[in-house]
């Protein structure tokens, strides 16, 4: 299983071997793959998205059976994919030594982010590490920003909250410090961020489907705009993805 260079770079200077890890917001399992490759004793990949849970399980299972170098043996035994809300993580207090939030915070609005941070503090063992990888707000004049704005407008209409909130690195650094995490370092993972056709399409389709769930003209207009932007933008490179690392004082 190929581990994206964003994940290998974010985890490169972290001590993961033999540790109990939580991938918060599994996505398609990118950080899970990195944690397993770096010798994690156990990875709890928590997501509230059934498709993401399935994708993560399948990727890791495929890699285990592929066995390219023999090191992947039993990766399946070291992974538990849990379908759950991160605001109520189904793990006991002090259960994990490493927490990764790889591309997670941008899908959490401030209220959700606060609740999730409380849970991180609860499940983290003394001396635990926290890895937070996310995106600085993309430049206002980037075409991709317009698509994200449409996606957020559709989400506000449909669900009463934004789909995406891009927190600046400095914001999350101070935010997690406020939750007792000691800041260790910041890295630039991607600059510019390559929003490929596949990303642009995924965001546009999500915006369009949320817009379609709203009745009336605004929903129709947003769906049309999302699809127009998808074909206009194609792909775009803009902004920065950063990686922050913290530890919890013992």
């Amino acid at each position: 299983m190929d581990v994206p260079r964003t994940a290998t770079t974010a985890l490169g200077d972290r001590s993961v071997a033999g540790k109990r890890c939580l991938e918060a917001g599994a996505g398609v399992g990118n950080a899970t793959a990195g944690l397993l490759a770096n010798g994690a004793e156990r990875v709890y990949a928590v997501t509230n998205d059934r498709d993401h849970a399935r994708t993560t399980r399948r990727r890791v299972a495929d890699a285990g059976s592929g066995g390219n170098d023999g090191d992947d043996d039993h990766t399946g035994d070291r992974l538990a994919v849990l379908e759950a809300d991160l605001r109520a993580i189904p793990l006991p207090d002090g259960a994990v030594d490493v927490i990764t939030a790889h591309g997670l915070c941008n899908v959490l609005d401030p209220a959700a982010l606060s609740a999730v941070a409380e849970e991180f503090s609860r499940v983290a063992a003394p001396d635990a590490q926290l890895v937070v990888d996310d995106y600085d707000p993309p430049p206002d004049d980037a075409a991709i920003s317009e698509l994200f704005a449409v996606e957020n407008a559709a989400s506000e209409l449909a669900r009463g909250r934004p789909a995406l909130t891009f927190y600046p690195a400095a914001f999350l650094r101070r935010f997690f410090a406020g939750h007792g995490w000691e800041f260790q370092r910041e890295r630039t993972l991607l600059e510019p961020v390559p929003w490929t056709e596949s990303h642009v399409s995924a965001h546009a389709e999500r915006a369009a489907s949320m817009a379609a769930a709203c009745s009336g003209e605004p929903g129709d207009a947003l769906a049309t705009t999302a699809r127009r932007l998808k074909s206009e933008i194609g792909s775009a490179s803009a902004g920065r993805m950063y990686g922050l690392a913290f530890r919890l004082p013992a």
Partner: protein
Amino acid sequence: MQTRPLGDTGHDSSVMTFGAIALNWLEQEGANQLVEHVLDYGVNHFDVAPEYGDAELKLGPKLRQHREDIFLGCKTQERTYEGAWRKLDRSLNRLGVDSIDLYQVHGLEYDEELDAITGDDGALAAFREAKEQGLIDHIGLTSHGDPDLILDALDRIDDLETVMFPLNPVVAGKDDDEYDYEAVLARADAKNIGTLGIKAFAAGSWPPTDELPEADRPFSNWYRPVTAPDEIRERFDFAAARGLTSVISAGDPKLVTMILEAAADYDGMDEAAQRSLIERVRHDDSPVPEQLHH
């Protein structure tokens, strides 16, 4: 154009090497012009092979005119002593020169071939005799095969001075050992062996011939190349920034000027931008369903 020491050879190679296969697709007059054009940009390292159609013959006239300005790499696919001598003589004749600066074992692919070339009756025995006679100056190896095999070759051939292998963001994004050419780069660096990068501009394979017959391909490269100036530039920057001594230009003459421009302007690529490129091409060819994040 920036130059870098080519391992222990004592030669400083331009950061772009001219892949002279491009001359095969031109008439002699055009070939002469392309060589002048490449030299004008400050390229001082050329690479050719007898397998590249008429490239050796078409390189000949301008090579002889500018012999002192060109570090000439040539190669052979022969694995035996006799075969290597025969091909070396033939290349010297076709190129019309007295000596070749770098003579390389071409396209090593199988373990048995490594055994063959290093054996008493192997190609390398001929290379060494030719070196003693002043017909070649340095010994190299090229392969787009298994990185483990290349690593073995680096360990087993004591007088190897250069190695040529693929390096681009597509292979750099893959973790499997079969794509781990970065390990080759690291080992070569540790041994102070010069590194020459091929396939820097590869975007992917050509479609199957029943979809796109060979005669309908718009470029003569073995692979489907990137063709837009921006893409060429970032591919060049990526390969050069990974630490190769020199990046070999793509085999189609239509691409050469764009690559020369990129090479002339090269001033590094930071690691975040390299990862950005790896991430972009990984998504272009990803088995994972559409994603919102990186």
